[in-house]
Protein backbone atom coordinates (compact mmCIF):
# COMPACT_ATOMS: atom_id res chain seq x y z
CA UNK A 1 0.00 0.00 0.00
CA UNK A 2 1.24 3.45 -0.72
CA UNK A 3 0.00 6.94 -0.05
CA UNK A 4 -0.01 9.52 -2.81
CA UNK A 5 -1.78 12.75 -3.76
CA UNK A 6 -5.16 12.25 -5.40
CA UNK A 7 -5.32 12.81 -9.16
CA UNK A 8 -8.31 13.56 -11.34
CA UNK A 9 -8.59 9.95 -12.54
CA UNK A 10 -9.26 8.94 -8.88
CA UNK A 11 -12.44 10.98 -8.66
CA UNK A 12 -14.92 8.25 -9.65
CA UNK A 13 -13.33 5.74 -7.25
CA UNK A 14 -13.30 8.32 -4.44
CA UNK A 15 -16.98 9.14 -4.94
CA UNK A 16 -17.84 5.44 -4.95
CA UNK A 17 -15.84 4.84 -1.78
CA UNK A 18 -17.52 7.76 -0.02
CA UNK A 19 -20.91 6.46 -1.07
CA UNK A 20 -20.02 2.99 0.21
CA UNK A 21 -19.04 4.43 3.61
CA UNK A 22 -21.75 7.05 4.10
CA UNK A 23 -24.57 5.55 2.04
CA UNK A 24 -25.13 8.95 0.40
CA UNK A 25 -24.11 9.85 -3.16
CA UNK A 26 -22.54 13.35 -3.17
CA UNK A 27 -21.19 13.61 -6.68
CA UNK A 28 -21.54 17.40 -7.06
CA UNK A 29 -19.94 17.98 -3.68
CA UNK A 30 -16.95 15.77 -4.47
CA UNK A 31 -16.42 17.34 -7.88
CA UNK A 32 -16.30 20.75 -6.20
CA UNK A 33 -13.96 19.58 -3.45
CA UNK A 34 -11.67 17.96 -5.96
CA UNK A 35 -11.60 21.03 -8.17
CA UNK A 36 -10.75 23.19 -5.17
CA UNK A 37 -7.83 20.98 -4.13
CA UNK A 38 -6.63 20.41 -7.69
CA UNK A 39 -6.74 24.08 -8.64
CA UNK A 40 -4.75 25.35 -5.67
CA UNK A 41 -1.81 23.03 -5.47
CA UNK A 42 0.39 25.91 -4.35
CA UNK A 43 -1.60 26.28 -1.14
CA UNK A 44 -0.98 23.93 1.80
CA UNK A 45 -3.99 21.77 0.94
CA UNK A 46 -3.71 18.02 0.81
CA UNK A 47 -5.88 15.36 -0.73
CA UNK A 48 -4.18 12.00 -0.23
CA UNK A 49 -5.26 8.51 -1.19
CA UNK A 50 -4.16 5.08 0.02
CA UNK A 51 -3.76 2.73 -2.93
CA UNK A 52 -3.30 -1.01 -2.72
CA UNK A 53 -3.12 -3.30 -5.70
CA UNK A 54 -4.48 -0.58 -7.99
CA UNK A 55 -7.48 0.07 -5.78
CA UNK A 56 -8.16 3.06 -3.52
CA UNK A 57 -8.69 1.82 0.02
CA UNK A 58 -9.01 5.19 1.75
CA UNK A 59 -8.41 8.89 1.51
CA UNK A 60 -7.92 11.97 3.62
CA UNK A 61 -8.25 15.70 3.10
CA UNK A 62 -6.68 18.44 5.13
CA UNK A 63 -5.19 21.86 4.91
CA UNK A 64 -3.23 24.43 6.84
CA UNK A 65 -5.37 27.32 7.95
CA UNK A 66 -4.04 30.45 9.59
CA UNK A 67 -5.82 32.51 12.22
CA UNK A 68 -9.05 30.53 12.12
CA UNK A 69 -10.73 31.37 15.42
CA UNK A 70 -7.75 33.55 16.28
CA UNK A 71 -5.31 30.64 16.36
CA UNK A 72 -1.88 30.56 14.67
CA UNK A 73 -1.57 28.36 11.56
CA UNK A 74 -2.40 24.71 12.18
CA UNK A 75 -3.34 21.66 10.14
CA UNK A 76 -7.02 20.76 9.94
CA UNK A 77 -8.18 17.29 8.98
CA UNK A 78 -11.55 17.46 7.27
CA UNK A 79 -12.06 13.90 6.18
CA UNK A 80 -10.49 10.51 6.67
CA UNK A 81 -12.26 7.54 5.20
CA UNK A 82 -11.31 3.89 4.85
CA UNK A 83 -13.13 1.19 2.94
CA UNK A 84 -15.02 -0.84 5.57
CA UNK A 85 -13.49 -4.15 4.48
CA UNK A 86 -9.98 -2.68 4.75
CA UNK A 87 -10.35 -1.33 8.27
CA UNK A 88 -8.10 -2.49 11.12
CA UNK A 89 -5.25 -2.93 8.64
CA UNK A 90 -3.50 0.35 9.37
CA UNK A 91 -4.85 2.23 6.31
CA UNK A 92 -6.26 5.08 8.43
CA UNK A 93 -3.07 5.31 10.45
CA UNK A 94 -0.94 5.51 7.29
CA UNK A 95 -3.18 8.26 5.89
CA UNK A 96 -3.15 10.15 9.20
CA UNK A 97 0.65 9.95 9.45
CA UNK A 98 1.12 11.01 5.82
CA UNK A 99 -1.14 14.01 6.30
CA UNK A 100 0.65 14.97 9.53
CA UNK A 101 3.96 14.77 7.64
CA UNK A 102 2.60 17.19 5.05
CA UNK A 103 1.54 19.52 7.85
CA UNK A 104 5.01 19.30 9.41
CA UNK A 105 6.60 20.12 6.05
CA UNK A 106 4.27 23.13 5.86
CA UNK A 107 5.75 24.28 9.17
CA UNK A 108 2.81 23.85 11.55
CA UNK A 109 3.02 22.31 15.02
CA UNK A 110 -0.61 21.35 15.66
CA UNK A 111 -3.18 19.20 13.93
CA UNK A 112 -6.90 19.51 14.65
CA UNK A 113 -10.17 18.02 13.54
CA UNK A 114 -13.85 18.29 14.39
CA UNK A 115 -16.40 15.50 14.48
CA UNK A 116 -19.72 14.41 15.87
CA UNK A 117 -19.54 13.33 19.52
CA UNK A 118 -21.59 10.24 18.78
CA UNK A 119 -19.28 9.07 15.99
CA UNK A 120 -17.49 6.66 18.31
CA UNK A 121 -15.63 4.84 15.56
CA UNK A 122 -13.88 7.91 14.17
CA UNK A 123 -13.50 9.51 17.58
CA UNK A 124 -11.74 6.37 18.85
CA UNK A 125 -9.51 6.36 15.77
CA UNK A 126 -8.30 9.92 16.34
CA UNK A 127 -7.87 9.23 20.07
CA UNK A 128 -5.72 6.21 19.21
CA UNK A 129 -3.52 8.53 17.15
CA UNK A 130 -2.84 10.55 20.29
CA UNK A 131 -5.33 13.36 19.71
CA UNK A 132 -6.86 14.94 22.81
CA UNK A 133 -9.43 17.69 23.35
CA UNK A 134 -8.19 21.02 22.02
CA UNK A 135 -8.77 24.55 23.25
CA UNK A 136 -12.10 25.06 21.45
CA UNK A 137 -15.69 24.26 22.29
CA UNK A 138 -18.06 24.13 19.35
CA UNK A 139 -21.37 25.95 19.96
CA UNK A 140 -24.51 26.20 17.87
CA UNK A 141 -27.97 27.66 17.96
CA UNK A 142 -31.17 27.13 16.01
CA UNK A 143 -32.08 30.19 13.92
CA UNK A 144 -35.75 31.02 14.44
Amino acid at each position, binding site marked *: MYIRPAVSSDLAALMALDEEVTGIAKRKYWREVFARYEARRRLPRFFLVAEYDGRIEGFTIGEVRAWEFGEPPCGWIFVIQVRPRSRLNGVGTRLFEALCNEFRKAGVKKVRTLMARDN*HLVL*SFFRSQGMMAGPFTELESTLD
Partner: protein
Amino acid sequence: MKLQKASSFAIYAVLELAANPLRQLAGTDIAREYGISAHHLAKVLRDLGRARIVEAVRGVGGGYRLSVNPKRLTLLDVIQVFEPVGSQNDASEDPELATDAGQALRMVLDELDDHALATFQSITISTMLKLMARRPWAGSARVSKQRPRAASRR
Protein backbone atom coordinates in the same frame (compact mmCIF):
# COMPACT_ATOMS: atom_id res chain seq x y z
CA MET B 1 -14.50 15.52 37.49
CA LYS B 2 -13.66 12.68 39.83
CA LEU B 3 -14.25 8.95 39.56
CA GLN B 4 -15.13 6.68 42.44
CA LYS B 5 -12.10 4.90 43.91
CA ALA B 6 -13.31 1.54 42.64
CA SER B 7 -13.45 2.86 39.04
CA SER B 8 -9.95 4.32 39.27
CA PHE B 9 -8.55 1.13 40.81
CA ALA B 10 -10.23 -0.91 38.08
CA ILE B 11 -8.66 1.23 35.38
CA TYR B 12 -5.20 0.90 36.97
CA ALA B 13 -5.63 -2.86 37.21
CA VAL B 14 -6.82 -3.23 33.63
CA LEU B 15 -3.93 -1.07 32.39
CA GLU B 16 -1.43 -3.25 34.29
CA LEU B 17 -2.92 -6.42 32.86
CA ALA B 18 -3.01 -4.97 29.33
CA ALA B 19 0.63 -3.90 29.64
CA ASN B 20 1.60 -7.44 30.67
CA PRO B 21 -0.37 -9.64 28.27
CA LEU B 22 1.92 -12.66 28.60
CA ARG B 23 1.62 -13.16 32.34
CA GLN B 24 -0.95 -13.28 35.08
CA LEU B 25 -0.61 -10.68 37.79
CA ALA B 26 -1.61 -11.03 41.42
CA GLY B 27 -3.89 -8.37 42.82
CA THR B 28 -1.39 -7.76 45.60
CA ASP B 29 1.34 -6.94 43.07
CA ILE B 30 -0.89 -4.43 41.32
CA ALA B 31 -1.94 -2.91 44.65
CA ARG B 32 1.72 -2.55 45.68
CA GLU B 33 2.62 -0.96 42.35
CA TYR B 34 0.00 1.76 42.82
CA GLY B 35 0.15 2.05 46.60
CA ILE B 36 -3.55 1.22 46.97
CA SER B 37 -5.49 -1.08 49.29
CA ALA B 38 -5.02 -4.74 48.30
CA HIS B 39 -8.30 -5.59 50.01
CA HIS B 40 -10.23 -2.98 48.01
CA LEU B 41 -8.50 -3.99 44.78
CA ALA B 42 -9.38 -7.66 45.37
CA LYS B 43 -13.05 -6.71 45.47
CA VAL B 44 -12.65 -4.57 42.34
CA LEU B 45 -10.98 -7.46 40.49
CA ARG B 46 -13.82 -9.80 41.50
CA ASP B 47 -16.31 -7.29 40.03
CA LEU B 48 -14.25 -7.04 36.84
CA GLY B 49 -14.25 -10.84 36.70
CA ARG B 50 -18.03 -10.96 36.98
CA ALA B 51 -18.19 -8.39 34.15
CA ARG B 52 -15.94 -10.74 32.10
CA ILE B 53 -13.29 -8.06 31.67
CA VAL B 54 -10.63 -10.02 33.57
CA GLU B 55 -10.31 -13.68 34.42
CA ALA B 56 -8.65 -15.37 37.37
CA VAL B 57 -6.07 -18.06 36.69
CA ARG B 58 -5.66 -20.47 39.59
CA GLY B 59 -2.62 -22.46 40.63
CA VAL B 60 1.11 -21.78 40.86
CA GLY B 61 1.93 -18.54 39.07
CA GLY B 62 -1.77 -17.77 38.94
CA GLY B 63 -3.31 -14.36 39.09
CA TYR B 64 -5.43 -12.25 36.81
CA ARG B 65 -5.29 -11.64 33.10
CA LEU B 66 -7.31 -9.50 30.74
CA SER B 67 -10.00 -11.45 28.94
CA VAL B 68 -10.90 -8.85 26.31
CA ASN B 69 -8.97 -7.12 23.55
CA PRO B 70 -7.54 -3.85 24.97
CA LYS B 71 -8.10 -2.23 21.56
CA ARG B 72 -11.83 -2.84 22.01
CA LEU B 73 -12.14 -2.19 25.74
CA THR B 74 -13.01 1.44 26.51
CA LEU B 75 -12.75 3.40 29.73
CA LEU B 76 -16.54 3.53 29.72
CA ASP B 77 -16.75 -0.28 29.70
CA VAL B 78 -14.61 -0.39 32.84
CA ILE B 79 -16.14 2.55 34.70
CA GLN B 80 -19.71 1.40 34.09
CA VAL B 81 -19.04 -1.72 36.13
CA PHE B 82 -18.78 0.51 39.20
CA GLU B 83 -20.78 3.68 38.58
CA PRO B 84 -23.16 5.24 36.06
CA VAL B 85 -21.66 7.72 33.63
CA GLY B 86 -23.28 10.70 32.00
CA SER B 87 -26.99 11.07 31.46
CA GLN B 88 -27.64 7.58 32.84
CA ASN B 89 -27.41 9.52 36.10
CA ASP B 90 -30.70 11.28 35.57
CA ALA B 91 -32.98 8.91 37.45
CA SER B 92 -33.97 11.76 39.77
CA GLU B 93 -37.58 12.91 39.55
CA ASP B 94 -37.27 15.79 42.00
CA PRO B 95 -40.18 18.23 41.52
CA GLU B 96 -37.92 21.26 41.16
CA LEU B 97 -36.52 19.77 37.94
CA ALA B 98 -39.88 20.47 36.29
CA THR B 99 -39.41 24.23 36.74
CA ASP B 100 -37.82 26.39 34.02
CA ALA B 101 -34.73 26.80 36.19
CA GLY B 102 -34.59 23.07 36.77
CA GLN B 103 -34.99 22.33 33.05
CA ALA B 104 -32.31 24.89 32.12
CA LEU B 105 -29.94 23.42 34.69
CA ARG B 106 -30.68 19.91 33.43
CA MET B 107 -29.85 21.04 29.87
CA VAL B 108 -26.46 22.35 30.98
CA LEU B 109 -25.71 19.21 33.03
CA ASP B 110 -26.75 17.00 30.12
CA GLU B 111 -24.23 18.83 27.94
CA LEU B 112 -21.47 18.01 30.43
CA ASP B 113 -22.69 14.41 30.64
CA ASP B 114 -22.62 14.05 26.86
CA HIS B 115 -19.01 15.17 26.76
CA ALA B 116 -18.00 12.82 29.58
CA LEU B 117 -19.75 9.91 27.91
CA ALA B 118 -18.19 10.59 24.50
CA THR B 119 -14.73 10.94 26.06
CA PHE B 120 -14.87 7.73 28.10
CA GLN B 121 -16.40 5.85 25.18
CA SER B 122 -13.76 6.92 22.68
CA ILE B 123 -10.67 6.09 24.74
CA THR B 124 -9.63 2.47 24.72
CA ILE B 125 -7.21 0.77 27.11
CA SER B 126 -4.70 0.55 24.23
CA THR B 127 -5.02 4.29 23.68
CA MET B 128 -4.40 4.83 27.42
CA LEU B 129 -1.21 2.75 27.22
CA LYS B 130 -0.03 4.84 24.27
CA LEU B 131 -0.85 8.02 26.17
CA MET B 132 1.15 6.78 29.17
CA ALA B 133 4.11 5.95 26.92
CA ARG B 134 4.05 9.42 25.38
CA ARG B 135 3.68 11.23 28.76
CA PRO B 136 2.33 14.48 27.27
CA TRP B 137 1.72 15.79 30.77
CA ALA B 138 5.45 15.96 31.52
CA GLY B 139 6.07 19.52 32.57
CA SER B 140 2.37 20.29 32.96
CA ALA B 141 1.40 22.16 36.14
CA ARG B 142 -1.92 20.26 36.31
CA VAL B 143 -0.33 16.91 37.13
CA SER B 144 -0.90 15.68 40.68
CA LYS B 145 2.29 15.15 42.65
CA GLN B 146 1.03 11.82 43.96
CA ARG B 147 -0.20 10.17 40.80
CA PRO B 148 0.14 6.40 40.54
CA ARG B 149 3.09 5.07 38.61
CA ALA B 150 2.58 4.12 34.99
CA ALA B 151 1.75 0.57 33.99
CA SER B 152 4.96 -1.06 32.89
CA ARG B 153 5.91 -4.10 30.90
CA ARG B 154 7.87 -6.46 33.09
